Structure formats: structure tokens, C-alpha cells
């Protein structure tokens, strides 16, 4: 299968195509734009060799500090390796985003360990919470550490190099039988946040649970994400970065590129490939090929951001 066909396969959402996509995801692919179609142009090493200019930032996700089960008894170790990868990048990112599930059980010691390791990257970090970060009684720990100055359950926006970044929260007030939820209050805030911005402003939205329907029977989607995407329709370049599903997936729909990052802790199965979305135990020598970090570069004048997934190994 050519790289072009693989890119085409990644655009579909049916299960066969998603699974096909899964067989090559995670090997580190540079995405660029050619004639409106995203196209992978090289593997990781080649991509790194071509030093990007413009704004580069880094995404990590799902570090699950505190997890100690068979799928990875040493999530501290793999998070440290991920930070090592970040420090070794040829182009230092301007900052980092963390798309949630910093901890496994929202314990103070887990937040402390995560902070201690992630701070070694020496980058500003913009967080959004995952459902594992709001388990403490009173739900205060995440807000106190990362949510100061944020609205509601922790949503906010900021600007860097002419790109508008929006951190959304879709892990609170979930309803029985449903998926992720943004809620009326946050959507009203988003409408207000976007209303005076020109359609040429590149937008990056990040949230924990995917803002596109990946696999509803596992809850991998956000019920009211369509309302958020409606608000983003008029913008020429929208990039949506998520975590939660512990695997790389990408989809392009009009001007919107959706991308989910690897976990630094443990992999989860491809949609429908297992009885449940629980942690996936793989051979020890394969684990680090399924964990990783995501490097994102925005070049002025290009609609699509170049997204490079870098596994911890391979």
C-alpha cells in the first residue's frame, strides 16, 4: 500500500479502514498538505532531519502516573523516557500541551510525581484534565494545580505566534449511556471566545476525549462536539488534538484535522479489536513502540499543521 493510500485510509471512519490505519500508526509519520489531501512524506528520522521553521509545540497525553498493572508496571519510567525524547528534539518546542489523564487516581503523590518528571522538560505546559484527574473528593487537586485562571471546569484559551489555542474540558458531568460532554456553559464561552477572531486565524483545539466519534460503544467521542465544530466551521485551519484512546489516529474533515496522541503509559486496543478498551498487555519489547509523544509544527502560510508522532522506541 502506498503512503498516499494509507493517508486515504486514515480519512475513512469505518472499522476496517480504522484498523488498517492502526497497523501503521505510531511509526512516526510527518504529515503535510498536497492539493488539499494530507499526505505522509517520510518517516520520523527524515522528518526530523528537515528542521522545521515556525511555531513548534509538543503534545503528551495519558501519563497515568500511579498505574502499576501488567500493561506497564513502570509508567514513571516511560514518562521519564518521553521527557528524555522531548529534551533530545532537534528543535526545542515553544511549549507543551498535556491532553489529560496526568494521574491514574488523582492522588496528591501522583500529581507530585507527574510534575517532578514533566517539569524536567523545562517547557511551559498547558493542561486539560482527563477523567482520571478529577477523582478526588471535592475535585480540587487538578483545579488548584493547573486550573487557576481557567473558566468553569478548567477551559481557557491563549495565543502563540498568531495561532489561537483553546483548551476544552469534556470529562465532567457525563451522563449515563453517553460519551464525553462539553456542556452549554462551555459552548457559550467558546462562541464568545471565537466571535471576534478573523477566519484566517489558525485554531488549535485540545481536549482529553476525542472531539470526533471514534467508537461510540466504548464512549470514544464527545456528544456535543458537533456544536463546537459548527462554531469552528468558518475558520480556514483548525487542528483538534486529543488523547484518551492511547493510540494514534487521524482524520481530516474539510478544514479540520483531528489527531489523537499516544499515551506515555500503556496502549489500548484498536476500536472493536478487544472485548473492552482496557489497558492492552503487549510483549515487553513492543511496549515502547506503542507509547510516545507528538510534535506539532505550524508554518505560516500553510493551512495544515505538521504533526509528527514519535514512539519511545522504533
Amino acid at each position: 500500500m502506498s503512503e498516499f493510500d494509507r493517508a486515504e485510509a486514515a480519512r475513512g471512519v469505518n472499522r476496517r479502514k480504522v484498523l488498517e490505519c492502526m497497523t501503521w500508526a505510531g511509526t512516526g509519520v510527518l504529515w503535510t498538505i498536497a492539493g488539499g489531501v494530507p499526505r505522509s512524506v517520510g518517516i520520523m528520522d527524515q522528518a526530523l532531519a528537515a528542521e522545521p521553521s515556525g511555531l513548534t509545540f509538543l503534545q503528551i497525553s495519558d501519563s497515568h502516573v500511579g498505574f502499576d498493572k501488567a500493561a506497564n508496571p513502570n509508567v514513571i519510567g516511560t514518562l521519564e523516557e518521553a521527557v528524555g525524547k522531548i529534551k533530545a528534539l532537534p528543535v526545542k518546542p515553544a511549549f507543551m500541551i498535556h491532553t489529560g489523564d496526568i494521574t491514574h487516581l488523582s492522588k496528591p503523590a501522583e500529581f507530585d510525581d507527574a510534575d517532578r518528571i514533566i517539569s524536567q522538560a523545562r517547557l511551559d505546559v498547558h493542561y486539560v484534565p482527563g477523567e482520571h484527574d478529577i477523582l478526588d473528593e471535592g475535585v480540587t487537586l487538578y483545579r488548584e494545580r493547573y486550573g487557576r485562571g481557567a473558566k468553569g471546569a478548567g477551559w481557557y484559551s491563549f495565543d502563540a505566534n498568531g495561532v489561537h489555542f483553546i483548551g476544552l474540558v469534556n470529562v465532567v458531568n457525563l451522563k449515563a449511556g453517553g460519551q464525553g460532554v462539553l456542556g452549554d456553559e462551555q459552548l457559550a464561552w467558546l462562541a464568545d471566545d471565537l466571535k471576534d477572531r478573523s477566519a484566517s486565524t489558525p485554531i488549535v483545539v485540545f481536549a482529553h476525549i476525542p472531539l470526533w466519534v471514534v467508537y461510540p460503544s466504548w464512549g470514544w467521542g464527545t456528544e456535543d462536539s458537533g456544536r463546537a465544530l459548527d462554531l469552528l466551521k468558518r475558520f480556514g485551519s483548525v487542528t483538534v488534538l486529543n488523547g484518551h484512546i492511547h493510540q494514534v489516529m487521524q482524520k481530516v474533515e474539510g478544514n479540520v484535522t483531528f489527531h489523537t496522541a499516544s499515551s506515555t503509559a500503556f496502549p489500548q486496543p484498536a476500536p472493536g479489536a478487544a472485548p473492552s478498551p482496557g489497558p492492552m498487555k503487549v510483549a515487553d519489547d513492543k511496549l515502547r513502540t506503542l507509547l510516545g509523544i507528538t510534535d506539532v509544527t505550524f508554518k505560516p502560510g500553510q493551512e495544515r499543521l505538521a504533526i509528527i508522532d514519535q514512539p519511545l522506541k522504533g
Partner: protein
Amino acid sequence: MTRTGIRGLLAATPAAVAILAAVSAGAAEREVKIDNFTFTPERVTVRAGTTVTWINEDDIPHTIASSAKIFKSKALDTDDKYAFTFTTPGVYQYFCSLHPHMTGTIVVEAVTGSSVAQ
């Protein structure tokens, strides 16, 4: 009614024997396992007074949250348990507030044996 109270009744009148039997049956315990992001059994029918205990056998934390906000557990890590005693007949829907696609139902029937509409 306290345990001492039941004993007192039993000593007082033979009719109380039937009451005690009913209360004992109602005070049974039922277990619901959480595994593979599923509550098993997904639907459980018990008599009023039954204590239902959920046990998380997954590698991921889950919660037990009543859809009507009548009960809610803390996050249960692997092997953690949560128990709730259902004293009032009715149909209780619940879900995992972390993974809301996980849902279950507890049907509580009156001790007298009259069944609740399902």
C-alpha cells in the same frame, strides 16, 4: 429495625417468626462484578433490604453512580468494593461516571413478594 428489636419480637409472638424470615431473606447480599468495562450481571433483581456489593476486577478505576443521584461511589481501583443497601422498592439505573457507556440496573422488589413493574 435493630437486630435486638427483631429478637425481641421473635420472643414475643410466633407471628414474628414469619416476619423474621422475610427480613432475613430481604437482608441477603448480591454481588455485581465489574470486568471488561461491563457490570455483570447487568440487571439484578433483589428484595428490599438487600445489600448489593460491586467489585472492580478491571485494571482501570470505575465508579457506581445512580442516574437519579441516589447513590454514588468513589472511584474504585482494582479489587476495591462499594456496597449500597436498597431499602425502597423501585428500579435503580446506574452507570460509571468515568465511562458512561457502562450502565446497569438494580430492580428492588417489596419484601412481601409483590413484584415491581419492570
